[in-house]
């Protein structure tokens, strides 16, 4: 039964997923061709120095990409459910309601994970061809909060869409904005190194964020 559910979710988001892959490829192409030009037309040592001492992040343009993708996938998944309250159809299926809601969320996060893995893997591999492991590691540590912000964007968007009352939608939008900002602070390489594990745990907990809105939807609460 859950396979059928996955099938339906995929039908909703498949073109957005393809689009996201396309945008990621474009972004990666931009970053690496730009990097190539930077290395070609500048003193390579000066580029290394600006990375190590001046916080030059050649991959900076992807900072908000995971967030944008997270929000988009969530809208693609949940907007069709929220229009005309079509989520009722899914909640009426002969399945445990909380499991259904968690499954929908899991499906979205799995897709996000594939997309994020693609982005991070290509960045890391590409970088390691031109820069030593220390720079690759610093880049990786810097990317993690941005990727986690993507998941948070997904969780908050889902919750805001499912939540029936406008007052609570607004509250969650404000809270989501500030929470996500925590993951996207303007900082130097590795600034997040002390906080990666706590942020990871918090992100995992937020998988449950949409459960209260889902419950309130089911009970017809305003």
């Amino acid at each position, binding site marked *: 039964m859950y396979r059928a559910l996955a099938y339906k979710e995929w039908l909703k988001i498949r073109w957005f997923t393809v689009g996201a892959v396309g945008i990621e490829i474009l972004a990666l192409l931009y970053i690496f061709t730009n990097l190539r030009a930077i290395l070609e037309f500048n*003193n*390579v*040592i*000066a580029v*290394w*120095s600006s*990375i*190590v*001492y001046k916080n030059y992040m050649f991959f900076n343009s992807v900072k908000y990409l995971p967030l944008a993708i997270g929000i988009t996938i969530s809208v693609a998944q949940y907007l069709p459910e929220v229009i005309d309250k079509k989520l009722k159809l899914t909640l009426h299926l002969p399945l*445990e*309601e*909380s499991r259904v*809601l*968690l499954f929908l969320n899991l499906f979205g996060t799995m897709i996000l994970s594939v997309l994020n893995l693609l982005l991070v893997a290509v960045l890391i591999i590409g970088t390691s*061809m*031109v*820069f*030593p492991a*220390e*720079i690759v590691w*610093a880049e990786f*540590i810097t990317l993690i*909060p941005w990727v986690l912000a993507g998941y948070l964007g997904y969780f908050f968007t889902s919750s805001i869409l499912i939540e029936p009352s406008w*007052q*609570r939608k607004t*509250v*969650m939008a*404000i*809270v989501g904005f*500030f*929470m996500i900002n*925590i993951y996207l*602070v303007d*900082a*130097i*390489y*590795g*600034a*997040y*190194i*002390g*906080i990666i594990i*706590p942020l990871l745990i918090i992100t995992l*907990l*937020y998988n*449950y*964020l*949409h*459960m*209260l*809105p*889902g*419950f*309130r939807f*089911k*009970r017809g*609460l305003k």
Partner: protein
Amino acid sequence: MIFSAKLSRYLIVLSIILVASVIFPEFYSMTFSHSFSSPHVYYSPVKKIFVKTVSYKREIKRLDSKGNEYTREEFERLTPLFSYRQLLYRNEMPDSIDGIPIDISLMRLNNIFITIKPTDVYRYTIPLNPLIESEPGRPDLQMPDDFFRITDKIEFIQCYSNKVKVKLSKLFNDALVNCGFNFPAKKFFGNPSTRKPFDEGFFIVDNNNNLFHMKRVKNKPYVKKVILPEGIKIEFIKVMEMNLKEFYGIVITEDNRLFLLMYDGYKFVELPSKGFDRKKMKLVFMGNQFYRIISFFAKNSVATFVTDRNYKLIAENMEKWKTDEDFAVGKIADFIFPFKLEFTDVYNKYVNFNFTFSNSSFWIINLLFLFLLLSYFKRKRKNFTVSQSVDLIIVLLTGFYGFIAVLLIKDDD
């Protein structure tokens, strides 16, 4: 479904508390806080007194410890070694101080100004550095075409190819091993710029907390082990190549002591460090022909120590001033906000959960909000549910923030 819905509710409530504890104190501070600038403290070799410049209502006042005020010109005459450019311009430069005739180029040679901020020390650093050729045979220094790392061995990585220079690396590695270096390196201190008179390479702390000095001399390794004073663990060294060639740099230890690492036999000369907190204070080291002036700048105080050129303490001074916490603005904030959360810190370059808890006065306000919530609940129903009791505890602990959170996301059962 109910269990996950309750979990979800507490998640949202805690998120609101978290966000509230960030934005309300910040908004309050943006609206009401004032800036309090620290005075700059100098020691006059002319009168042997401390003089300071203070920013007062957008004006600069120049005072001494007794409160006497000086004009700008008077002040400059009191601090000739610091203000020599202005004095020369006005032809007011004295011929001698303390019997020693003034030689401008000698004076310039001896003038030192070094600052170390906590953010220089407490930050993530990428453990790659360029080892500049220290005897280039040319008047200017040049950046090398490699960066080195020290993991289980030292490796020089050619920047263009991103490949290890095997021969050079082996050469340096043997030198380190022969000196008793214990891999991997823990910390690197140097000055990776070519805008300096010459290069003194890097001071490196190895895995056993020993200190080594490494230079690149005609592309060959110069490695010396530096004997540390008893019980010293190095936190940070600010390396500063100066034509004066008295010391390599300023050393900060893990127990807040300060030393100069001297050229002469790598001796450690201790500097006054009374009250110094390396994690929260800015260190300013000023030097001239006659004195060494060391200042520690904290949020509401600056301590200044003056030594002679033999590093014997001859004077100290403490300036304190009030900041927001001492005025109504700060006291009210303490009252309303049980704690505040910030993710960045003025003292380091990390992102972290930085909680600042108020003094105990906030419990009163917390109880007030608790009471408000209690009466609200009582109006709705006679007995309390378990979840309402939890809400009350949340408000007791987090006061204003919890109160908003619990009312915005009321329990639906």
